[in-house]
């Protein structure tokens, strides 16, 4: 694709200004109501981008899944997020090796396969006792401090950061650095320069770590990948790929799950019947987590792809080069998902084929780890503090409307 302009159908004479991506929530636990109307009236609709240009918004479950599984939609847009950021909607430079979120097949699989082994159902099962221990230690600390405490700073972020640090072999003392960088990379109104700077800083941090692990290997994933790379100099992993992969795992591995922990907690506190059901039967933990993932769908602005050829999706023609947004929150509230009353939170429902972790070859690599952390943390938290309650009203809670990943900036709780 030589032409990187992505707004070929902005006709000068178009009368109606195009709407942007629906972002206005009327309830903090629900997506913007506009999505329900779009699913009915205009399931593949044209939207304007804040930095100029326009693209397509896909809101139905069936179309979202079809799109994310279709190799004619390229991932090359990655996290540039032109549908919410005021960046000009131009495609980024050629993706770096190892940048899973931006690569297409067959290259993508070459980098995904070497890391898949660390995130299998079995491997994550083996991590559970250690996750439980980490959670209990944080709950002890909360209990000693006494309420109110900020659940994000004292439980959610420490648990997910400690788990991914131990898995990768990153020192937990560096959490200030990488948590801060994650915040800058994921902020919606970060300028291209700011997010580029944060990305570079994270890259240097990870490059140093890769070098350190080569000198002194440990029992961790980065060391394993370095050893694998050195044993196979013709293989896909070079130092750039190792650095990029490590950075992705570190950021994706702590921010998302931490936000699900905090938002999931607040959601249950505001649905006392659901919390009571979970408390009455801890065996519901896996169903409850699956339902919270679906109901809250924290990848709130969906996933972007670019069409590589002219094609049709949901009856709508799309031209090569156009950017298309798959709304995961909308798809997960679509009756087309095949569950009763998708707008109702019901922790007793059986597993659904929700798309909270995406769909297709990029579907979340760390999903088993996320499930284990969520199940352990939520169950232990509500068991430890039977009187847990928010220490602020919903109006005062700091929801992350301004971040690519929804959740809470802070959640003061007491018990």
């Amino acid at each position, binding site marked *: 694709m030589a032409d990187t302009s992505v707004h070929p159908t902005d006709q000068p004479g178009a009368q109606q200004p195009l709407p942007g991506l629906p972002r206005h929530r009327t309830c903090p636990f629900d997506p913007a109501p506009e999505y329900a109307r779009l699913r009915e009236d205009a399931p593949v609709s044209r939207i304007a981008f804040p930095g100029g240009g326009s693209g397509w918004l896909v809101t139905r479950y069936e179309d979202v899944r079809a799109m994310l*599984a279709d190799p004619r939609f390229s991932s090359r847009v990655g996290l540039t997020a032109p549908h919410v950021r005021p960046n000009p909607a131009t495609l980024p430079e050629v993706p770096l090796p190892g940048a899973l979120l931006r690569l297409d097949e067959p290259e993508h*699989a070459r980098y*995904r*396969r070497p890391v*898949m*082994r660390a*995130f*299998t*159902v*079995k491997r994550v099962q083996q991590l559970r006792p250690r996750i439980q221990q980490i959670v209990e230690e944080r709950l002890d600390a909360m209990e000693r401090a006494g309420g109110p405490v900020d659940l994000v700073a004292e439980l959610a972020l420490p648990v997910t950061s400690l788990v991914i640090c131990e898995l990768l072999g990153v020192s937990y003392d560096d959490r200030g650095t990488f948590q801060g960088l994650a915040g800058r990379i994921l902020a919606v109104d970060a300028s291209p320069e700011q997010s580029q700077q944060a990305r570079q800083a994270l890259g240097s941090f990870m490059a140093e770590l890769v070098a350190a692990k080569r000198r002194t290997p440990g029992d961790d994933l980065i060391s394993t990948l370095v050893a694998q790379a050195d044993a196979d100099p013709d293989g896909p992993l070079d130092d750039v790929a190792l650095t990029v992969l490590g950075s992705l795992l570190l950021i994706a591995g702590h921010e998302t799950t931490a936000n699900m922990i905090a938002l999931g907690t607040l959601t249950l506190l505001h649905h006392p019947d659901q919390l009571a059901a979970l408390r009455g039967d801890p065996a519901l933990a896996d169903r409850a987590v699956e339902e919270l993932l679906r109901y809250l769908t924290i990848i709130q602005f969906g996933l972007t792809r670019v069409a590589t050829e002219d094609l049709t999706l949901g009856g709508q023609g799309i031209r090569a080069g156009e950017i298309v947004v798959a709304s995961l929150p909308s798809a997960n509230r679509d009756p087309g998902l095949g569950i009763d009353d998708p707008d109702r939170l019901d922790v007793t429902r059986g*597993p659904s*084929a929700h798309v909270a*972790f*995406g*769909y*297709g*070859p*990029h*579907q*979340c*690599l760390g*999903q*088993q780890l996320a*499930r284990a952390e969520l199940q352990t943390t939520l169950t232990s938290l509500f068991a430890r503090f039977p009187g847990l309650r928010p220490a602020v009203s919903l109006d005062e809670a700091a929801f992350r409307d301004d971040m690519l990943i929804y959740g809470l900036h802070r959640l003061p709780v007491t018990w």
Partner: protein
Amino acid sequence: MRITLDQDRCCGAGTCVLTAPDVFDQDDDGIAVLLDAQPPAHLAAAVRDAAARCPAAAIRMEAE
């Protein structure tokens, strides 16, 4: 029922193992493997769920 699994498509996130652990497992590399290509009828619902949830559409079921 007979099941086929296309390992070349598998992206290894393990949903099938969670959904139908008697029928699917993952090898050390994370690629799904079939434990039972002709599972008993009482597992049909679980296998159908696994096929529906598989992000790579790698699982096929055929009635016999």
